[in-house]
């Protein structure tokens, strides 16, 4: 009897599980439910600026689910275009990040063991300074009378400054620069575990270096590529700071739209609907990331 009771009573390990579990449920999971609820409300001029979904009149409880915000997102092409262009920018930027990050991660994994950690620290170090300041650095370089244009004019390559800042190119440069460490770290963790004898075997069997790379190294690093790409792509879809500071007025990204709905239009229900749709779009990539992340942890456990 006591043994059966004990099974239902919390034992010591719940003292360790409960605090982080409760914190993340309350401050990370519950907020999504509230955002979902408010996305079905109406805007009103009051504090808080949205109507309640439930209403007691006499003895009847009426629950009003207002889908107008979602219909609005569907009808106004601005939102559809913003989602589409955010996904496009995120995919292209992730590809460039991979293109720049893979050789660096590969080169670090080829270094002598003693210098690997130093090189890795040098990759991470810039992201320990401020994100905003790194974006600010590129604004100074790319703007019309900035360093790059001045340098090119001095060289005589161009006569008039090139418009780079406030174009999509500047947004791509900013994203690749800011998110590069997130691509390099998981790639390095994967590449450093490769068994060198596999490459030697490929060489012995007559593979050229690039063939060996394509046939051995690249397929083996698939998990690292997926983890790094997800770590870059998912947050970039909702990026606000880089398109706001480096993009033009016409650089449409959904993070920027959400920000404007919330801060400029003060339309909390539409902002919530924008967030919920973004979350639905990202749920599959997040699950893929979670799958690889937990596999990585379990791999370390055994």
């Amino acid at each position, binding site marked *: 009897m006591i043994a059966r009771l004990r099974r239902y009573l919390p034992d010591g390990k719940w003292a360790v599980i409960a605090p982080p579990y409760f914190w993340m449920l309350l401050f990370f999971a519950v907020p999504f439910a509230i955002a979902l609820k408010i996305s079905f409300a109406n805007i009103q001029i009051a504090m808080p600026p949205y109507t309640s979904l439930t209403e007691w009149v006499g003895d009847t409880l009426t629950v009003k689910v207002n889908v107008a915000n979602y219909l609005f997102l569907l009808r106004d092409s601005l939102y559809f275009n913003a989602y589409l262009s955010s996904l496009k920018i995120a995919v292209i930027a992730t590809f460039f990040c991979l293109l720049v990050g893979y050789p660096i991660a590969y080169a670090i994994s080829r270094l002598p063991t003693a210098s690997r950690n130093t090189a890795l620290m040098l*990759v991470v170090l810039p992201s320990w300074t401020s994100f905003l300041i790194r974006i600010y650095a590129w604004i100074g370089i790319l703007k019309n009378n900035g360093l790059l244009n001045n340098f090119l004019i001095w060289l005589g390559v161009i006569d008039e400054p090139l418009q780079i800042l406030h174009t999509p190119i500047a947004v791509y440069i900013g994203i690749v620069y800011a998110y590069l460490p997130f691509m390099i770290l998981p790639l390095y963790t994967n590449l450093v575990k490769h068994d060198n004898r596999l490459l030697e075997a490929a060489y012995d069997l007559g593979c050229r270096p690039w063939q060996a790379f394509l046939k051995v190294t690249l397929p083996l690093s698939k998990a690292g590529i997926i983890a790094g790409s997800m770590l870059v792509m998912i*947050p970039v879809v909702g990026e606000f700071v880089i398109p706001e500071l480096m993009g033009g007025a016409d650089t449409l990204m959904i993070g920027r739209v959400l920000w404007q709905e919330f801060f400029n239009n003060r339309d909390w229900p539409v902002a919530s609907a924008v967030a919920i749709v973004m979350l639905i779009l990202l749920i599959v990539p997040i699950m893929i990331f979670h799958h690889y992340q937990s596999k990585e942890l379990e791999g370390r456990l055994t």
Partner: protein
Amino acid sequence: MSAAKTSWFTRSTLAFGFAFLYLPMLILVIYSFNENRLVTVWSGFSLKWYGELFRDKQMIAAAKISLEIAFLTACASVVLGTMAAMVMTRFRQFPGKSLFSALMTAPLVMPEVITGLSILLLFVAMGDTFGLFQERGVMTIWIAHVTFCVAFVTVVISSRLGELDKSLEEAAMDLGANRVKVFFLITLPIIAPALASGWLLAFTLSLDDLVISSFVSGPSSTTLPMKVFSSVRMGVSPKINALATLLIAIVSVAAFIGWWLMAREEKQRQRDMQLALQQGG
């Protein structure tokens, strides 16, 4: 032959990679000593922008608020993150484990605008129903920062716990120590460096956050990134270069000390190993 080729490739890739990562910051630092108001026109060495920076009362006040929040965030994230990491690496089964691990990985990639908006809506709803968080400010920013920092700290600490030799813990348990004692006497001292790097990571993440803070801050709690953002939006200013240089200097010194301590410890360990081998042989 092939070894020489690889090393050439490695060297040039790293040279280009590090130039790409560090050149923009180097330029930022150089131009912070520029006398000219126009950031990109060099007209002589001067420290006047540093003076202007320290006379900017709003900037100093914002920096103080940010440092306070970052300190409190780092402490709370390390406590919760250590618990979460123990749960992830030591507890095999318990009801709701998959939800637990999802809650610990999703914040790593969740776009900040979604997290920021949702947690603000929670604060507003709690204010409406329970009268909590009526005043938004340092407290609400701290809660929001801890929520996303815990996930990063958990990754850092659980990767260290995963590498840890479990036989030490098992040996202590066999000798009659209970789990709590084993944790504080054996596990905690071994993972202390991971706790330190987790603390620093949470501190820098919190100090750097703009988007989430903007959603949950109140009228009297403008953080440093919010101040920098509004000033960068107005245009480039040499004062921001001076601020950036100070930040870069602090981070580099801290990183160098960390690297030096780690290198020293590694050398010591190798010396001990050699000594042990010699004595054994």
